[in-house]
């Protein structure tokens, strides 16, 4: 039964993926669609192999910014959530601000950050990613901190535990699954955000720049090879954080 489930979790998505790609390839071939309209999967694969070096370079640039943004966003998200959990007033004051932050599109946010932090540096990209991560991080952590069972709260109160002790021994450990879920959601957002922020400033390197400059020359096969690079990078981020979540869940046996 376990083996069956195992094959299913691996085989089923792969089968679906292969099927979709085959269909795509068949359509491109059957209707003789030109690569500058819709590139074929095989063409993209070929271009991916040919430009692997450049894709890797670009992915490292974008990935680094995403990683730094993920770090900044995660840490601030958790810290602010702890504060907001402790101070109801702060929590309520932050409601409209966080809701706003969640809807400010990157096209608007990135230029502001570049103006604030310099357009030749990567800071703006990292901050755009950080903001994208902050929102799910903050909301998830806050929800996690609030999932305390009343009996645990009573218990800590009966021990006259300090606020710091309650946070360290009860609230934070309890919130770990929520924090990790937030991190998981934030991870692929960080990649996408860092990538899109590349259009509005910073050094002309990275996956986003490469995608547009290839697309602008109608070289869609190469553009999609970079898109594939972006997908793989996003999947890597997601996979690592999802594995982290799974590992912690197993460790906690919940």
């Amino acid at each position, binding site marked *: 039964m376990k083996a069956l489930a195992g094959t299913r979790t691996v085989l089923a998505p792969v089968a679906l993926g292969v099927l979709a790609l085959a269909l795509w390839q068949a359509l491109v071939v059957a209707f003789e669609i030109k690569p500058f309209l819709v590139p074929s999967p095989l063409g993209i694969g070929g271009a991916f192999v040919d430009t692997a070096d450049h894709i890797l370079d670009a992915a490292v640039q974008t990935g680094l910014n995403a990683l730094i943004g993920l770090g900044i966003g995660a840490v601030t998200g958790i810290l602010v959530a702890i504060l907001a959990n402790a101070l109801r007033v702060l929590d309520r004051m932050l409601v409209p601000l966080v809701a706003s932050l969640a809807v400010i599109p990157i096209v608007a946010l990135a230029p502001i950050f570049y103006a604030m932090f310099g357009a030749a540096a990567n800071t703006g990209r990292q901050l755009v990613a950080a903001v994208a991560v902050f929102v799910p991080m903050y909301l998830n952590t806050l929800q996690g901190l609030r999932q305390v*069972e009343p*009996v*645990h709260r*009573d*218990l*800590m*109160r*009966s*021990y*006259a*535990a300090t606020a710091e*002790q309650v946070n360290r*021994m*009860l609230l934070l*450990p*309890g919130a*770990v699954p929520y924090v990790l879920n937030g991190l998981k959601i934030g991870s692929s957002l960080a990649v996408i955000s860092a990538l899109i922020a590349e259009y509005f400033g910073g050094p002309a390197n990275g996956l986003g720049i490469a995608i547009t400059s290839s697309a602008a020359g109608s070289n869609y096969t190469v553009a999609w090879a970079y898109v594939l690079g972006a997908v793989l990078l996003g999947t890597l981020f997601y996979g690592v954080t999802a594995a982290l979540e799974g590992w912690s869940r197993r460790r*906690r*046996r*919940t």
Partner: protein
Amino acid sequence: MTDPRPAVRIASVDKIFRGRKGAEVHALSDVSLDVAPGEFVSLIGPSGCGKSTLMRLVADLDQLTAGEIEVFGKTPEQARKDQDYGIAFQQAGLLPWRTVRANIELPLEIHGVDARGRAARSDELLELIGLADFADHHPDQLSGGMKQRVAIARALAERPRLLLMDEPFGALDEITREHMQNELVALCKETGAAVIFVTHSIPEAVFLSDRVVVMSPRPGRIKDIVTLDFSARDEELREDSTFYDGVTAVRMLLHDGAADGARGVENR
């Protein structure tokens, strides 16, 4: 343990819960009760009569509406801060990410006992509750009864002078329950701790207590107090007729004085 003051002094306490839409629940009305040091007092009564509420007031987990409570001559708040009591709830309330040992050590850790001291104490307690082999297990690997025992050990960890226990044996099966009752008796004798004990089981209350406080609901008040004066609490007592007399006395009070058919619907 020859404190002249009562361990707990409850004087004319009222507790009213104010719910949404102005709905009020009069949970406790004019409740007065003194618990002497080393005394074992059980609270018994139908569901919703305010047993848990009373215990929570003593533990400073809720605020009273009127009246006064003193714990070792101090306010409940001061007593809580001074860690004068240990508490065990009906739900075990173990932290799932801590091992059995770490759960037992939690209060010691919070109050700054060093690692050596903690380990020594938790070894003792694990022995007491018969879970020495499970020290490194996590709560989810324990049965309901085992969890409950861990929670009891945790309540005892700091050798409190006052133990507050809210239906701690509810989840145990019969044999384990008897064992834990015997252990509790031994422990109280040894440490001289006063106990306030909430239970639904009449025989349990009678077996354990110096006094059984019978409560009635709506609003919660003390209906009567049955004083029991057993010379020893051991297995023989469970067969003794004085024990059965105590059980009958409490049961009659609970059933509204009528020993027969009046075991009516309880309209909580």
